[in-house]
């Protein structure tokens, strides 16, 4: 009897940890495959385009309705505020007092926002959207141009044909332009995307002339003995630190296991991968991608065709051209700092943690990043 009890107890104890497993097996509660979103295509404009499409449809229905716009707005879920062209916003008293609007704002034409106001719902403008100072915008779409006044904060996304950003603006989330985004001064950003992204006031007049001249021919650099050279796949691997002399040309892909310093005027006809720090002095041209595990410091008037990726930080000085009109590119790093003096990017700039646009005093002889690192 005691033996039987002992055996039963022993079996019960052995099975005890298996009880949840057996229960889950018999009565499954978690048998769905891990969710993979089939339609996810990493389109930065996804939210904005969906919203814009929805609003356009809504407005077209609105124009055909017999009842007044105000009445429709009252009935709408979520609550909306329609703004008619050239008329001030019909804000309620408490909204004015609280300096907050909790209704979705839809501008039938050009929409002008009052200053010092927080918009807790999305904003849509059929034409332009002109922001006021110190606006706090959740999300906004305009079919034409968005002007963001100084000290504006956008907390989710913003999209328009063209976006003009004044100084001290904070852009959290996605900022996308069908044609162009331009920064006039210092700003904070996370993700930017447009065929052309201009940093600085002077950019317009310089765009047509600077950086686009064909690069002059220079003799190819002798790679020396510190390399593993793989001629059959057109790449060279530098074992340690590496520096290319001024105005030299490097043919093929370059992989550097240490730090890389590209002197003034260096041209690389290929892509570059650097395990350590990367310093590009002024007027360096890379006809390929630049991938760095450590920080990348991009000096004045540099030109890079392919994607620029750093796992730490990218600092971009003035007068740089990144990507090309017909070859858009991506610049990705947790931290990206860009000097807002005539730098232009074609494509996407994505700072996972912090993107900073700053204005440095125009001093041609001084390159603070180079001096800091060296």
């Amino acid at each position, binding site marked *: 009897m005691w033996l039987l009890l002992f055996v039963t107890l022993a079996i019960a104890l052995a099975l005890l940890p298996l009880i949840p497993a057996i229960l889950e097996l018999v009565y499954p509660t978690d048998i*769905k495959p891990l969710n993979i979103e089939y339609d996810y295509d990493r389109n930065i404009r996804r939210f904005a385009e969906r919203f814009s499409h929805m609003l356009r449809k809504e407005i077209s229905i609105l124009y055909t309705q017999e009842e007044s716009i105000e009445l429709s707005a009252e009935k709408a879920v979520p609550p909306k505020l329609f703004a008619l062209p050239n008329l001030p916003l019909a804000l309620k008293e408490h909204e004015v007092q609280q300096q907050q609007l909790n209704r979705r704002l839809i501008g039938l034409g050009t929409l002008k926002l009052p200053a010092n106001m927080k918009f807790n719902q999305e904003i849509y403008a059929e034409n332009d959207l002109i922001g006021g100072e110190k606006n706090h915008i959740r999300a906004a779409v305009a079919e034409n141009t968005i002007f963001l006044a100084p000290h504006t904060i956008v907390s989710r996304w913003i999209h328009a044909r063209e976006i003009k950003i004044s100084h001290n603006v904070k852009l959290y989330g996605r900022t996308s332009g069908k044609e162009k985004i331009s920064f006039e001064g210092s700003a904070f950003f996370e993700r930017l995307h447009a065929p052309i992204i201009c940093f600085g006031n002077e950019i317009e007049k310089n765009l047509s002339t600077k950086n686009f001249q064909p690069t002059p021919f220079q003799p190819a650099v002798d790679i020396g003995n510190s390399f593993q050279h*793989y001629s059959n796949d057109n*790449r060279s691997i530098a074992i340690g630190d590496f520096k290319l002399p001024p105005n030299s040309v490097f043919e093929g892909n370059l992989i550097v296991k240490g730090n890389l310093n590209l002197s003034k005027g260096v041209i690389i006809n290929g892509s570059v991968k650097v395990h350590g720090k990367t310093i590009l002095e002024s007027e360096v041209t890379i006809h390929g991608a630049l991938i760095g595990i450590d920080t990348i410091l991009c000096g004045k008037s540099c030109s890079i065709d*392919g994607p620029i990726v750093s796992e730490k930080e990218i600092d971009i000085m003035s007068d740089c051209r990144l990507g090309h009109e017909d070859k858009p590119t991506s610049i990705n790093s947790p931290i990206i700092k860009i000097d807002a003096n005539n730098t232009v990017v074609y494509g996407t700039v994505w700072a996972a943690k912090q993107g900073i646009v700053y204005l440095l005093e125009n001093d041609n002889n001084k390159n603070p990043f180079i001096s800091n690192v060296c």
Partner: protein
Amino acid sequence: MRNSIKKTLFFIIGLLVFINSTNFALASPASDNSALVSNPHIASLAENYPGYKQQAIYSSTTKPSTSDTSFSVIGILQWVTVFITVGLLVYMVRHLWFTFNRLFGTQRHPFLDIDTATWPTVTVFIAAHNEETVIANALRALIETDYPLDRLTLTPVNDRSTDRTKEIIDEFVERHPNLIKPFHRVSGKPGKAAALKDATELVTSEILIIFDADYIPSKGLVKHLVSAFFDPEIGAVMGRVVPLNVGSNLLTRLLDLERSGGYQVDQQARMNLKLVPQYGGTVGGVRICALKSIGGWHDDVLAEDTDLTYRLLLNGWKTAYQNRCECYEEVPEAWPVRMRQIKRWAKGHNQALFRHTIPLMRDRSIPLIERLDGFLLLAVYIVPIIVLIGWLISLLAIYFDHSSLTTGLLWTLAFISYCGLGNFSAFFEIGAAVYLDDNQNRLRLLPFTLFSFVISMIAISQALLEQTIIDRLFKRAFHWDKTVRYQRPSILQKAD
């Protein structure tokens, strides 16, 4: 399945009998008087005291001489145990390191955010051998990709199919003649590697992406995989494989847990720590110039993926793992299918182990830590066999028990070390992976993974035995076992 278990049981019993008989054989000479007489002290005692001779003979055949002879067996087993313990502790540290890195470390997804670029030309291979049930789904999904169509070619690699695979492919070609360029293979060496080798000769693009026919890639997947190739050091890229038929039975649920641990934690941690992520043969890609520079596909290998990973590594290329490149696959729903699959993997992996270990360890251009991890990854299919041997030795310890404090402690420590930690450290990875995937209820099934582990252990041991002895004795060539497909429309709709 039953046969495999039977064979393995015979093997275990045979081994036990062998070791016992060895012990008996070793113990026998000690009963011989010559051994006793060779000891001058005992010999003199025996001569002077005949009674002692008998006693001495008795005692030396029972206690001391058994101790002497079994000591040699015990000594060997002890060293084997120490070796096993150290080996498993190394794996334990590695697994725990990976798990903690995934839970608390910095995660590397360097190419995740490249969404705008001038994309290179890409050929997508869909490896197919009698895939009439699944090939259409794969093609349909790939046609909808967001990759620039002028830079993309889809090539179903139809390897000697005898079912409707060719017909289905040709229907798609009719509808998309510029996009789909099929490769129908009617003869030649069997196997995926051989088929890929033949098809790759016709590729003119810069990048090659490979899917098996039962995979259903999402819209952005090709672009996402290709983004890693902007890094000129990357020779191959690997995405994450996610089981689709999770809910079918216990086996599929256990395989889902294993895959989670393997990709979500193990592969990503190796990516984070700049070790050796492995190209897995599907949901991955390779740079054509890198492939050519290492001599293309080897068609005499069973695991062309592992072979490629190491040949690339030895030639200065890296493999990138992209954890967010997720793609559904089918996992085996029957144990015999699973056994065959894991045997093929084990044989292929061990083949790579024999080929690449020495070149890898000798290559000083690869950092030491990478070489070590590369070796541990190569030897991963040896671990179950080591564990099995460890278990056997633990059983034998009962027979050879000495009651010596030192020996007893050593046994105990070794046993606890590898059983308690080393052996099960992979389960921490599974736990962490399920937590990261936010599928926490399925973690309850974790105790059952032990059964799956035991069955894998049997299959892997059998594979090694066949590979090292039986195949050599009978000069059997490696052959390719096609994994059975189960895909049904209902499953796909569920996933959608």
